[in-house]
């Protein structure tokens, strides 16, 4: 397999139980390089749990996870971001004791090297490149006026986007997004989509959990459907929308649109 055709992420036989509760069962799928893949499924299907397994918050009960062909199942969560794996959170998790810009500075951590970056008192210099980069990222998303705001003063939708910007600052090759459009109105969703398309164009591979089928339709190339922790369908959105199983379990009568 050549490097470019190799999947960025490959999940094989993944399962996870909490005590007796099987939340993910024998799940296998690949995320192809440069594409946007959607992971959808009813509430409680196990989508977030899959993200947690991939990013290492939970240890797997069974199965393997590989990034760029390398098995990362036993790599500690902390080191996975260095392999190009970055994520956002369904229940926004910004650090409440830090301002927006400081959250982003922490998000840059993987870009830093060694003790020197750790110990340099760079925040003495307001125009230091780290800060400039963080501000630039905010500007790109139209959030620069919130730079110095405490996180507690942000509205939900803004928090959601700051969380996402922080994830991008790790310069990931694979970005896991957990319901990025939740809390955004349709026009904000479109803007978000455009940003993500641009990211994709820059070579970032996306794995997205989302319940907004318009959004999935306009962003994702490939869809994996989960129900009760099992994969019940996989293919293009149009394909899976035709699946009665999927309509029954997830999309409902309108097809989610």
């Amino acid at each position: 397999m050549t490097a470019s055709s190799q999947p960025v992420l490959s999940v094989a036989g993944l399962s996870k139980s909490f005590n007796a509760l099987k939340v993910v069962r024998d799940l296998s799928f690949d995320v192809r390089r440069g594409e946007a893949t959607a992971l959808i499924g009813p509430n409680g299907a196990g989508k977030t749990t899959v993200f947690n397994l991939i990013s290492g918050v939970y240890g797997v009960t069974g199965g393997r996870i590989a990034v760029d062909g390398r098995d990362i199942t036993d790599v500690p969560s902390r080191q996975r971001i260095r392999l190009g794996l970055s994520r956002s959170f369904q229940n926004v998790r910004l650090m409440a004791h830090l301002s927006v810009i400081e959250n982003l500075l922490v998000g840059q951590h993987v870009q830093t090297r060694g003790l020197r970056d750790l110990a340099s008192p760079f925040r003495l210099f307001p125009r230091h490149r780290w800060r400039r980069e963080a501000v630039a990222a905010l500007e790109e998303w139209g959030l620069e006026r919130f730079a110095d705001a405490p996180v507690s003063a942000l509205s939900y939708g803004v928090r959601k986007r700051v969380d996402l910007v922080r994830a991008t600052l790790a310069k990931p090759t694979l970005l896991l997004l957990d319901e990025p459009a939740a809390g955004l109105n349709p026009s904000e969703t479109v803007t978000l989509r455009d940003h993500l398309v641009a990211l994709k164009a820059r070579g970032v591979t996306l794995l997205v959990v989302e319940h907004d089928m318009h959004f999935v339709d306009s962003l994702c190339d490939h869809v994996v459907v989960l129900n009760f922790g099992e994969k019940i369908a996989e293919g293009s959105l149009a394909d899976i929308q035709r699946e009665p199983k999927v309509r029954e379990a997830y999309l409902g009568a309108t097809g989610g649109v």
Partner: protein
Amino acid sequence: MVLLEVADLTVDYGRVRALSGVSLTVRDGEVATVLGANGAGKSTLLRAMIGTAKPTTGSLRFAGTDITRLPTHGRLAQGIVLVPEGRRILISLTIEDNLRLGAHLRRDGVAVRREIEMIYERFPNLAERRSMLASCLSGGEQQMLAIGRALLAKPRLMMLDEPSLGLSPLFVERLFDLLAELNRDGLTILLVEQNTGKALAAADSATVLELGRVLMAGDPRQLAADPALQAAYLGAAKPAPNALTPS
């Protein structure tokens, strides 16, 4: 009859003005919706109505009485309830305890028991986990719990802050069906939604906020047709400024 009347409401967070001079009425038995971009002040408006944000100026009347100075528990006793933004379930309590807490102001224990069972019927995900800690629920399940909990307060006016957030399309449909059904049974609903299309379709009246002010208000079908609103909130083909340009 007017159930809720908000007059000239201004809310400040320290030096940030989140709402300025907002007026709004909700008639008894209707579904009203409030729309607006991120940071427009929708959540703040609901917080002011339940009493967790203190207005700088303005007044609130509910069912003919002035509730501006009433504490939150007093407002719940009057029959107002809020499904707050971000669900705010209590993760150290079981799911059952969360639901019971929703009904803690009620005295009719038998009816509460029955209604809890009804909630479980509507939200089977919750039923399976009733004695587990709420911390293990998925995002969507938490949302179900928050809605169920609010219903158990047996309100006259139910305010929901983005209830469809994180729910699957199937459940969003069921949620709107549920709201319609409750509304038929006489519940007044004030809905803040980002799912603008669905909200406008379900509502009898709509208000659009922008930067803390009322931008427009009126019949939802007319608003839905408004091109300005289309562009701003319904996401009708609006080119993004810096996206899609290949780099």
